[in-house]
């Protein structure tokens, strides 16, 4: 009780006890977030790391991913007026996802909502989706041709660091400066960090940082920085375990009472049809970090979905120029213009680069 004597003689000093605890907790919290690796990984050049990334393979993993997007997109009105955890909402806000992977054809992605969950499960030829909120599942059997294709989320947003890293590497071009930064720690693992600088004043992206696991060489974190050096998009593991998940985790049987929709394999699903048409009508102006994709989308119909889109567009800033007129969405990492003659131009660039591309 020796140490307590000071408290007995000077009770006012007791206030130091809770304050000290606050300081200790805040201190450990800050150390945990800024901790740099204590054990240095062997040095690797940026080129070696790029090769590592492309060759990285895993025999399986399960982990938790946090995705943050601040793309400057105005809130998209959801059909029921509520914020739903489904994948289409990944374009804004913070989301927690659970990733499980054991083979290219055995993977499960779960978006963890506050009181809900949305799952996409790929097991061999079977692809299931499950929405706990709707109590509904869909099932699709992949054809042999489709099996080779990598799956993509409906929103088109990369939902795992691997997916995000693939996209970034596709955009690499000679103007990009690639440097390997000091080692970092992600999800409690030692990692390399690759820093990509586009070096293009027309691009809204000022930097992309890729954290690569020192051991497996898998991407653990991807951060995209906007022009004001703020993170506009981030997807990172908060915990990851490289043991192969049990096969049972990829088996999905719709629970009794759930609505199950069977998507016929020989049906042209709307999404694949859209994609095919889209590819025909899409032109890319420029390349790499300043590529602008122009898609002929045609007139909006009177369907419920198109009416919603119309309402959304009418909130955007009207713009015009020698290229015509339309509505501008000036995001933090990209700009998009929907022209009145039914063209959609999107790119990670300033609006004037979009106008130039449209007038070509």
């Amino acid at each position, binding site marked *: 009780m020796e140490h307590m004597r000071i*408290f*007995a003689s000077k*009770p*006012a000093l*007791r*206030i*130091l*006890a*809770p304050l000290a*605890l*606050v300081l200790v*907790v805040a201190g450990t*919290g800050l150390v945990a977030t800024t901790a740099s690796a204590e054990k240095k990984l062997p040095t690797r050049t940026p080129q070696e790391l790029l090769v590592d990334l492309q060759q990285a393979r895993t025999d399986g993993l399960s982990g*938790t991913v946090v995705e*943050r997007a601040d793309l400057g997109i105005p809130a998209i009105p959801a059909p*029921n007026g509520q914020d739903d955890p489904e994948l289409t909402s990944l374009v804004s*806000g*913070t989301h*927690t996802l*659970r990733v499980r992977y054991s083979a290219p054809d055995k993977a499960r992605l*779960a978006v*963890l909502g*506050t*009181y*809900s*969950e949305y*799952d996409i499960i790929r097991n061999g030829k079977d692809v299931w989706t*499950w929405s*706990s*909120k*709707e*109590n509904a*599942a869909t099932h699709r059997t992949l054809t042999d041709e489709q099996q080779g294709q990598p799956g993509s989320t409906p929103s088109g947003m990369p939902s795992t660091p691997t997916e995000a890293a693939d996209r970034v590497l596709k955009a690499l071009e000679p103007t990009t400066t690639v440097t390997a930064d000091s080692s970092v720690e992600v999800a409690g693992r030692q990692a390399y960090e690759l820093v990509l600088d586009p070096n293009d004043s027309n691009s809204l992206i000022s930097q992309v940082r890729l954290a690569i696991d020192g051991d497996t060489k898998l991407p653990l974190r991807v951060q995209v920085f906007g022009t004001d050096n703020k993170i506009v998009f981030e997807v990172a593991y*908060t*915990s990851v375990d490289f043991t192969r998940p049990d096969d049972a*985790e990829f088996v*999905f*049987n*719709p*629970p*009794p*009472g*759930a609505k199950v929709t069977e998507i016929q394999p020989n049906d042209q699903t709307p999404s694949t049809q859209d994609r095919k048409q889209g590819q025909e009508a899409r032109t890319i102006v420029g390349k790499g970090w300043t590529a602008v994709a122009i898609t002929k989308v045609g007139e909006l119909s009177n369907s419920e979905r198109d009416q919603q889109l119309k309402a959304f567009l009418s909130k955007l800033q009207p713009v015009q120029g020698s290229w015509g007129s339309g509505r501008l969405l000036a995001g933090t990492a990209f700009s998009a213009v929907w022209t009145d003659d039914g063209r959609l131009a999107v790119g990670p660039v300033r609006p004037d680069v979009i106008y130039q591309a449209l007038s070509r």
Partner: protein
Amino acid sequence: MSAAELLLVKNPPRARVSTRFLRSELKIIFGRRRNLAGMGVLAVVPVILAVAVRVSAPGQGDGPPFVSAITGNGLFVAFAALALELPLFLPLAVSAISGDAVAGEANLGTLRYLLAIPAGRTRLLVIKYAAIVIFALAATFLVAIVGVIMGLALFGGGDMTLLSGTQTSMADGMWRLALSSLYLAAQFSALGAIGLFVSTLTEQPIGATIAIVLVNVFMFILDSISQLAWLHPWLLTHWWTAFADLLRDPIATESIKRGLITALVYASVFWLAAWARLSTKDISS
């Protein structure tokens, strides 16, 4: 200091583990009519919920969390009631008890008698906080148990569909409900530590209770402002809804762990603050 007191300080009586103080404290908490009325309100929510869902047409997707799952398995009445009472009712009950803990004694003029023995202030705070924790457990389990009884009576049990879409046994569902209740009781206990501290600042128990409820609501408001995302993990209430992670397959432990650590830190900091405050306070009533 008198000679007798000096003697006691030098040779403190050997600590006897006596539950008498705690037992009398619990008798007061669970014997007060206003507290019983409060617990009655807590228990009424699952009853209303179960009856309302039973008599209305089944809706899908809309409404409060878990409610659409109730028709499939009665256990969800308990989960839905916990989710509904989590933002206000349960914290309010804990606020009332913890706000009363010290301020109530001061208000009645009984605090100085409780402190008649030297070194009694720390012990007083230990006992008072133990009673708050027991109340938090009792209140949370009351909601859960009434929910289970109503749910099973009106909708029946059976296998339960988890958030991940997998089915689990009734026993496993009960186990997950017990874990959820324990987790939430731990969270409310941390709020109770804030309450204990606030209670040492005033002699007005009602004022203390209102202040604690305000702190609770304020944390919820801060948690809803997306521009303050950096602050969210530090807020106690941010982790409360994580109890639903116990309904995933397999259980997602990450948020649960963070939530428990956050609750432990809040409880320790505010218990120590209460201790620092009470031991320097002039007790006149």
